[in-house]
């Protein structure tokens, strides 16, 4: 394989949530890109060239660049995080592309994720969903010995599968309904299967699902595109489990009140 490639690069530029936005052609700045560079390093190179040419660099979110913080993520030719399975944008490398390939790079698109600038979106809705109930109330100093409550290995492993979610939002970007069901269900499931999470299990699912709706995410209609886009391969089985928990909680519990979610 050749060590460097030229790309036909089109990047979505949008100066804030109210701007209409449009694709710009940056092919002139995307030549001679090392195939060993990551996708974000390719954008770094393009940006450095843009700055030197006196042009506004492309804004995109990123931080750890090792696939765990969940800050990065763009849609590449229609696929959230690009063509490689189980891989975040920062871990995607240019050797997955060919010389002369045409690339269209866009932000996550969802009403609940307003564009901040260019490829960076506001995912504050995810934080607010967690604030609605995605926790176990346990003040520092009040916990029993960690071995007092045994957690069978299969349950701990199950919880870990769900807890692997990095909160990047690719599931929302992939979903035709812009639903965040996979994200919400991963958190509901992680805490809901553990013995420590039982006390707040019903209120958690009620409050989190209500907040999900309130934020303007769509409902799940079983397309499963979220699972295929998820860089951590979170299974859609969690959505089914969440729906079962939700049904059970909604018949045994009063609907969430406005003030809920805080003190358990």
């Amino acid at each position, binding site marked *: 394989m050749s060590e460097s490639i030229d790309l036909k690069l089109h990047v979505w530029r949008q100066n804030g949530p109210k701007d209409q936005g449009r694709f710009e052609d940056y092919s002139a700045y995307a030549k001679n890109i090392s195939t*060993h*560079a*990551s996708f974000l390093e390719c954008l*770094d190179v393009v940006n*450095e060239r843009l*700055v*030197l040419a*006196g*042009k506004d*660099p492309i*804004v995109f*979110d*990123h*931080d*750890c*660049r*090792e*696939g*765990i*913080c969940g*800050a990065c993520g763009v849609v590449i030719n229609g696929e959230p995080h690009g063509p490689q399975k189980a891989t975040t944008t920062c*871990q995607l*490398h240019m*050797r997955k592309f060919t010389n002369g390939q045409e690339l269209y790079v866009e932000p996550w698109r969802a009403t609940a994720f307003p564009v*901040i*600038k260019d490829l960076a979106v506001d995912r*504050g809705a995810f*934080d607010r969903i*967690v*604030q609605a109930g*995605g*926790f*176990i*109330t*346990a*003040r*520092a100093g009040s*916990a*029993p010995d*960690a*071995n007092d409550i*045994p*957690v*069978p*290995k299969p349950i*701990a492993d199950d*919880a*870990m599968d769900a*807890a*692997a979610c*990095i*909160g990047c939002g690719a599931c929302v970007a992939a979903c035709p309904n812009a639903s965040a069901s996979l994200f919400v269900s991963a958190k509901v499931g*992680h*805490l809901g299967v*553990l013995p*420590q*999470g039982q006390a707040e299990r019903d209120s958690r699912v009620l409050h989190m699902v209500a907040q999900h709706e309130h934020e303007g995410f769509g409902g799940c209609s079983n397309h499963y595109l979220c699972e295929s886009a998820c860089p951590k391969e979170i299974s859609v089985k969690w959505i089914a489990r969440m729906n079962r928990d939700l049904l059970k909680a909604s018949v045994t519990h009063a609907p969430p009140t406005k003030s809920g*979610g*805080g*003190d358990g």
Partner: protein
Amino acid sequence: MKLESKAPDGPIETRWERHKFGMQVVNPANKRKFKVIMVGTGLAGGAGAASLADLGYDVEAFCYQDSPRRAHSIAAQGGINAAKNYQGDGDSIYRLFYDTVKGGDFRARESNVYRLAQVSVDIIDQCAALGVPFAREYGGLLANRSFGGAQVSRTFYARGQTGQQLLLGAYSHLARTIANGKVKMHERCEMVDLIVVDGRARGIVTRDLVTGKVEAHLGDAVILATGGYGNVFYLSTNAKGCNTSAIWRAHRRGAGFANPCFTQIHPTCIPQGGDYQSKLTLMSESLRNDGRIWVPRKKEDCTKDPSTIAEKDRYYYLEEKYPKFGNLMPRDVASRQAKFVCDDGLGVGPEIAGVRRGVYLDFADAIKRDSEAVVREKYGNLFDMYERITGENPYKVPMRIYPATHYTMGGLWVDYNLQSTIPGLLVAGEANFSDHGANRLGASALMQGLADGFFILPYVVGHYLADAGKSKGVDESHPEVKAAIKGVQERVQTFIDVGQKGKRTVDDFHRELGAIIWNHCGMARTEKGLKEAIAKIPTLHEEFRKDVKILGGGEELNRELEKAMRVDDFFELGALMCRDALERDESAGCHFREEHQTKADPSVPGSYGGECVRNDEQFAHAAVWEWNGAGKPETRNTEPLTYEFIKLAARKY
């Protein structure tokens, strides 16, 4: 500069207990009247903000990321130590204390380290209660592993994502306190200055990273939990946004900076691939349990396909030099030896700036012995990650690794109460200097972050506030507050003005600074090299301030400006690191001065030399640097370190 450690005396086992009892407490009804500012929301900051809020304090928290869930604590892979002795293998609080002091090469404060070991057991309880899915045995009890050369199995873990799971635990705890209104969270908001009025920390100046708005946030105490400064090297395993600005700006306002030259290098990272490289990726050092490290014996073999190099032509340098520990030598020794063989021209992989910087980590023997399936089960996710990044299949071709900057033990000086030399300014987690001495043991960073956040800040903050009382008479109109805001606005404007005409990008300058520091103040340091760096850095800094290219304005989202302000601080910190390394005329832990190393003794088998030689008579102290104004040399103060419980001894392997 007054450096009173305030560490209690008497039996070490009861120091923290007695100290807690001696502390003042704030009446529960009065706690809500106090406002605490928390900068950084990783393990220390997130857990601290949530715990203080639970106690009733009014907390305002700040992070530069778009969510507190993304702080770089998330990237720690291996695990978290705790002296639970669940394995019944002879672990104890005292043993963890002993290992940490010895591992830190006798440059940490005994009282702090003992307290850390003591509260380590509570951390595991707290995290299990928060729903952290730790690895379990089939009976449902917690699993442990041995980590980083420890002789006992005291490391708790959640697959290879322990940092992520602990951070998500702390984050969920924080989320609950945000929901109930006790914490006000400011995301995408960066601290750019500290406000000190009448010698007491009263607040911070922040720049909103979306709107560019510069404003003051005032409180009764300020806590910095802003992590380490490894990105001074440009290439490190830190996240791209990690920076020194919060602690550096506090330093410029009078907080002593301790042991800046104590920076840790991690031996098993993926080597640099080219000039475009933006960061280095760490792979868990558990790989060294089964991988064998080697380089070709002959320079002409370095570009050959490794499978064609005969066994006799392979140099397993760690196994040969240290037969007892072999590939499991501690981080600093393993890192330095990799550097030395590459310096000798035996490195492998791409040539960058005339040198091949990489050594093989070979699993062929492990695969032959245990089968590929067994190796896959142990290390599958790491092998996948390696292949994603390098495009090479490590089941077939040996991995290439090289050390990278990973953690900084140095940081703002704090006393036993985590208070800096500025009253009311507390520092927690990696941002302070206190617990790891000259070298941090594996799986101890997460432990320290959570110890500070969950179990120490809640006490020491109350103690400070009960004594100092409410910060009165300081509001937005106070001259010091106005001056601090104006100072930041002017600094921003200077960069914007220079940036219009500048010719070099921020990253270009940062790469050059990083290379100077890596070459002269990295894994091995010499008087000559450090002096060279000390001469070069201010010149480059001057050039940076005159010629950096930044587009756009200050009152908008401007990533180049953000980076420039951080790099500006890295220049000053980098110069101080080199000076600290020069003045510390000894080798200790990760600080390796080539002038001070053991010599090879041909009469003793396996005595290859090259290990640290400390100078306890002159340097058994923390060096604490005092800012004297821009362009003026800093003053070096010292806090003597005494070892009452663990006898000063050389580390031997």
